[in-house]
């Protein structure tokens, strides 16, 4: 693996036919703009965790990630965002996937005044697969958005989007999910789901699904829900001896954990679950 990091950003290149077992951990730069590049060459695989942490107040960061997967390459990438409550972060990631490649990307946004993640995926080679999951917690006046655009250019590709927001206070969440299936992309499978829970009636969630399908042999679906914690489920748990608060926490945890499916770095997954638990105690 080749890696370099300078004032502009970082660059990672996994040479062909290399299976990197140990995950790569990267600390994102939290001020100004940076430009990063990840290339996974043919037949290789990599696990990457990008941590976004801000200690100082009023930081403003803008990040551009360019991700390239060659034939039969695979990448599991987690963007873990725990920012100071006065920090603004904008990430824009473009992913290009060649034939038989696979990407799983997880956006975990736990805190920050304003976080905006956008993802553009191009499935350029046959039989490529892309999974994009997101989990965002907002409280107070925080604002978080996920904007996904997946373009199916080649046939027989699969894409799957699952984005969830848990919102309290007067916070706001935004989700824009676009699926574009070009005429040549026959036998596409593309799913998109946005599920959201408002813990406070003053919190707000905006959802914009958008499907543009130009091929005729495709399986596509999208669904969006905004709701509260299922009171019937809370009562069911209560009748078994579990206190209301614990019941609600259990349900929210279960709701959140669905988005963590596919993270194959166990210690990162448990770290996130721990943060989620902490979050739910205070919210």
């Amino acid at each position: 693996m080749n890696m370099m990091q300078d004032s502009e950003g970082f660059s990672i290149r996994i040479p062909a036919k290399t299976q990197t077992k140990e995950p790569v951990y990267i600390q994102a730069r939290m001020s100004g703009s940076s430009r990063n590049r990840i290339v996974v060459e043919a037949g290789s695989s990599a696990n990457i965790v990008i941590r976004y942490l801000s200690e100082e107040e009023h930081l403003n960061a803008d990040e551009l990630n360019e991700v390239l997967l060659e034939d039969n390459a695979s990448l599991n990438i987690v963007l873990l965002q725990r920012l100071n409550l006065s920090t603004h972060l904008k990430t824009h990631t473009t992913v290009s996937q060649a034939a038989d490649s696979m990407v799983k990307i997880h956006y975990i946004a736990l805190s920050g005044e304003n976080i905006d993640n956008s993802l553009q995926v191009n499935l350029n080679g046959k039989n490529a697969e892309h999974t994009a999951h997101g989990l965002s917690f907002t409280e107070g006046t925080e604002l978080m958005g996920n904007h996904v655009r997946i373009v199916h250019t080649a046939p027989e590709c699969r894409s799957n989007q699952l984005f969830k927001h848990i919102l309290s206070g007067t916070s706001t969440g935004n989700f824009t999910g676009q699926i574009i299936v070009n005429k040549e992309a026959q036998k596409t499978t593309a799913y998109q789901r946005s599920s959201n829970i408002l813990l406070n009636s003053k919190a707000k969630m905006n959802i914009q699904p958008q499907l543009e399908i130009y091929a005729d042999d495709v399986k596509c679906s999208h669904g969006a829900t905004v709701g509260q914690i299922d009171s019937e489920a809370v009562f069911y748990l209560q009748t078994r001896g579990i206190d209301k608060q614990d019941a609600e926490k259990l349900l929210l945890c279960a709701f959140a954990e669905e988005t963590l499916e596919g993270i194959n770095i166990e210690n990162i997954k448990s770290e996130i679950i721990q943060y989620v638990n902490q979050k739910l105690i205070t919210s």
Partner: protein
Amino acid sequence: MLSIRNLYASVAGNMILKGLNLEVNTGEVHAIMGPNGAGKSTLAAILTGREGYEVTEGEIWYEGSNLLALNPAERARKGIFLSFQYPVEIPGVSMANFLKLAINEQRKSRGLPPMPAAEFLKRMREKAKLVELDASLISRSVNEGFSGGEKKRNEIFQMAMLEPTLAILDETDSGLDIDALRIVAGGVNALKNKDSATIVITHYQRLLDYIIPDFVHVLAGGKIIKSAGKELALELEEKGYEWLVS
């Protein structure tokens, strides 16, 4: 053990229970029957503390405590169990985690340490066998994708795990075929003991062929209008409720 005195209760402004009295002692099985809309499920809701139901008059005592002053979880920890008419699916919460939490919360309230893992697993296996619940269901999320019969068996499985002192079965027979009914009733009978009691709420006599009640009460118009032994159930099956109600 349970004493309901002159209970008046309303839901969404409609008075449903109008002066209901009921005494249940340990070791007894009580069947509460009645026409639709008589207030049977309201009674179950009131006993377990469901939100949206308001008691406007009367009192309920359970093992020396004022039941109405307790929240639903506290009632459960005092040994009250409700088998739901419509068990709730809870995606993402595994049966094992759910039951472990429930059992340990109940043990904690009795000053007991958490149940050792080996004992918990052993009990899961034994009790699943009792209601012929497939082992694969136990590794799934609570009720998720269970058939109607499996959900009802899962209710009795949970009851077996939690060993309540007062079990309330709300229309447990609805939607069950005869085989499932036999299994569910078998589970309930196996769990019966001299220190616990059961209230069976049912519209039909059918379940009472398998769970033999000591008392049968007819609930109509918000109160109990007749109480007798098990033979009353057969009479109701034959004649319906009209002769009592009018």
